């Protein structure tokens, strides 16, 4: 029982990190209609940055904040490449984000090499109902909870957040009232970078990060984001938690080599179910 509880809590922490990646994907897609396949890259950039900054002797806190800001800048630059040119279609932008991800490999290998890097996080562990959970896992859960609350407040209560929602809701109407949809799209990309960066600095102490870790991160994040139709962050959070727990359970009960397959399988099932539903609705409408 305590093993099950342990897997569950650790799974929730893994799910929270996935949720941060997914929320970045959702933020960008809601506002711009673009699926940003460079989202995992932001986490990698932040993870590698934080390992270097801590290695240089900078204190905790400052290193993590700086790494997250670098990831936000990477998000902004990706946005400039993807939607900077007026008239770029979301599909073309998607291809550009794939290209940015590949380009990032080269930059990361030049700057940090191709070996995995780690960073120290919160040491120690606590025991919850007989199950041991690392303190860093609790930190991941806490930071994710705070981040989602802040995101909800930003989108639900602030004028800028509502302007971003308006761009997602009706881009034509957004232009009619004078919103600069492209500039707000760039802001969404920067926000995506920020969220990916937070995931990166939280995950790096738990598992070493290398230039190609973005593949695992984006597959998991995309699976969770698809759960919420790429538009609903709270449903994406639920999907991410489900995915995290399923993967950790699979690993815990002896199928550790198949974690990625769990994510891919889940994503496939959700996409098939959603596609089936959509065609049903379409047929009804017709």
């Amino acid at each position, binding site marked *: 029982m305590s093993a099950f509880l342990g897997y569950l809590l650790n799974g929730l922490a893994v799910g929270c990190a996935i949720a941060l990646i997914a929320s970045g994907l959702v933020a960008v897609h809601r506002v711009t209609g673009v699926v940003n396949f460079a989202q995992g890259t932001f986490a990698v950039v932040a993870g590698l940055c934080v390992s270097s900054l801590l290695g240089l002797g900078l204190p905790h806190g400052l290193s993590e904040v700086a790494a997250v800001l670098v990831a936000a800048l990477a998000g902004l630059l990706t946005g400039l490449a993807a939607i900077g040119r007026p008239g770029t279609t979301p599909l073309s932008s998607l291809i550009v984000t794939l290209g940015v991800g590949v380009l990032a490999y080269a930059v990361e290998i030049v700057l940090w090499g191709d070996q995995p890097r780690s960073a120290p996080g919160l040491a120690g562990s606590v025991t919850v109902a007989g199950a041991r959970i690392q303190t860093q896992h609790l930190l991941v859960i806490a930071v994710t909870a705070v981040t989602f609350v802040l995101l909800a407040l930003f989108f639900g209560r602030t*004028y800028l957040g*509502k*302007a971003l*929602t*308006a761009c997602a*809701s*009706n881009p*034509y*109407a*957004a*232009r*009619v*009232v*004078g*919103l600069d949809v492209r500039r707000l799209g760039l802001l969404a990309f920067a926000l995506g970078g920020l969220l990916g960066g937070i995931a990166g600095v939280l995950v790096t102490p738990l598992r070493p990060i290398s230039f190609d870790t973005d593949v695992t991160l984006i597959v998991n994040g995309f699976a969770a984001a698809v759960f919420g139709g790429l538009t609903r962050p709270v449903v994406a959070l639920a999907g991410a938690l489900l995915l995290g727990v399923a993967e950790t359970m699979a690993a815990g009960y002896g199928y550790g080599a198949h974690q990625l397959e769990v994510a891919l399988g889940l994503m496939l099932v959700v996409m098939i179910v959603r596609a089936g539903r959509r065609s049903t609705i379409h047929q009804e409408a017709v």
Partner: protein
Amino acid sequence: MIDVTGLVVSYGSATALDHVTLSIRPGEMVALLGPNGAGKSTLANTLAGLLTPASGTVTVHGRLALIPEGRQLFPDLSVADNLALGGWRSGQRDPAPVYTLLPRLAELAPRRAGVLSGGEQQMVAFGRALMSHPDVLVVDELSLGLAPNVTSGLARHLVELNRERGLTVLLIEQNARLAFELCERAYVLESGRLVAEGDCADLAGDPRVAGAYLGGAIT
């Protein structure tokens, strides 16, 4: 207030507006008539700066607000948020002045715009345009899909703004009777070209215009 000279707007190889020239003086209320696909909405979007002309010039003196065809609200946001975003250009986020003019909007304020009736949505679109403190209001299809009593209520507000506050109005309509009732002058656009213009009374008496837009009845 609005000067358009030799305006050409194209979508790829298709020409939507072909050398359109028109002029609207401050405080005027002018109608633009035409069938579907004539280029009326293209002209509205070009005046609002949402489309770039292939050639010609568009000059708008003062701030222009557009009530687009089909209302085009933000369906997921509340009425109050829709209005507040209408003030993005002017910096005015408080919808109180609009509530004074359209008190019904104050009652609808917390409701999601997407669940409102067509008439209520048109009123929100109207209020949202007013939030930008426009000098010129372009209304694309005020009456489309609305019951006559709803249309006349909105038209009354439009006339009041025009006569009492000097708001310049370009009313784009398929309902020629309504347009002739409200406006002093009108332009007729067909297949991207202006085919007639003049005082509404004269146009209503023109057999071609009456035949095409007033069901043959010359009023």
